[in-house]
């Protein structure tokens, strides 16, 4: 490992002198920092894409955005999904589905299933905290969901962890600030 910067004497730097480390770096160290940053970004992407392959779901981790499944799931809770093709959809399961004309997927429970001999399936959903089933949420005239509408089935649950996402969605400025600070930290802080 090249540690060119470590040779010099320690100049008294204040804690907020964020460019201090950067000034001490040579070219090689700088490339290393940038590559390191690229590594972090690409590993995160790889993990996400890998999870998509392993779980069969186009979005293996989702954040609960509404209170329609309370008291089981609250806003900001995290759900882990799988969507294996051979897994049948059955009543009582919690599915995440997309409805035409709505961008945000919905997390609700299956309350009715009709499956034909050839495997064609239609089902109806309802939120635990809602009084009525979801027919009012579906596209106009649509009475049933089908397998193609399903993004995933809920398999695991972690409370509160998705709160960061919710805050970032509600306050976009916070999101940019966070990304900027983290990016700056990784790029400017010298690897020891």
């Amino acid at each position, binding site marked *: 490992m090249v540690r060119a910067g470590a040779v010099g004497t320690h100049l008294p730097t204040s804690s907020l002198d964020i460019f201090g480390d950067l000034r001490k770096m040579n070219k090689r160290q700088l490339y290393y920092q940038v590559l390191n940053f690229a590594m972090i970004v690409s590993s995160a992407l790889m993990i996400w894409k890998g999870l998509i392959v392993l779980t069969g779901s186009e979005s293996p981790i989702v954040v609960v955005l509404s209170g329609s499944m309370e*008291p089981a799931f609250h806003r900001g809770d995290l759900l882990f999904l799988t969507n294996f093709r051979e897994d049948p959809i059955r*009543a*009582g399961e*919690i599915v995440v589905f997309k409805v035409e004309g709505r961008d945000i997927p919905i997390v609700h*429970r299956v309350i009715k299933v009709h*499956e034909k001999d050839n495997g064609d399936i239609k089902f109806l959903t309802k939120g*635990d905290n809602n009084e009525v089933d979801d027919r009012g949420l579906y596209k106009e005239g649509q009475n049933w969901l089908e397998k193609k509408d399903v993004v995933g089935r809920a398999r*695991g*649950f972690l409370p509160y962890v998705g709160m960061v996402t919710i805050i970032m969605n509600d306050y976009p400025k916070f999101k940019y600030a966070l990304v900027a600070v983290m990016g700056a930290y990784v790029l400017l802080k010298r690897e020891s």
Partner: protein
Amino acid sequence: MNTLLSRANSLFAFTLSVMAALTLGCILTTAFKDRSAPVRLHVSRILLKKVEDFTGPRKKSDLGFITFHISADLEKTFDWNVKQLFLYLSAEYSTKSNAVNQVVLWDKILLRGENPKLNLKDVKSKYFFFDDGHGLKGNRNVTLTLSWQVIPIAGILPLVTGSGRVSVPFPDSYEIATTF
């Protein structure tokens, strides 16, 4: 270097790791537990009608009315990583047109701290028992089961079916009366 920022950073990181480890321990200690429990179901009343359902213009379907008793002791299902049980009574059957039909008739949210011993008499179904056509008339293979989903504080979301099941023999003729 012992700057304020680095101290705060390492404190935060340490807190996060400790919490992650504790949560993982919580998940692992309860993930492989058997959450089943014996259930006793009894059907006290069966009624069959043919009425317009909500799915299409003037489309009539079979509508069943079932009244039932439920008794179950779910005390053992609760432990330190159970926030809630979502109980649901479902009817499962097959018809000529559909190989598998499942209709949830009734459900109940049982929170931690509530009485886990159920003893309910003459419960009416909460949701309409509409068939997808006319498959309920004379159908002898309708089975009721009580199942539950364990909602943990953190962890997996298993679906468990109670051991007791009861079959519902539907009559061969429709009830004419229009009262529900």
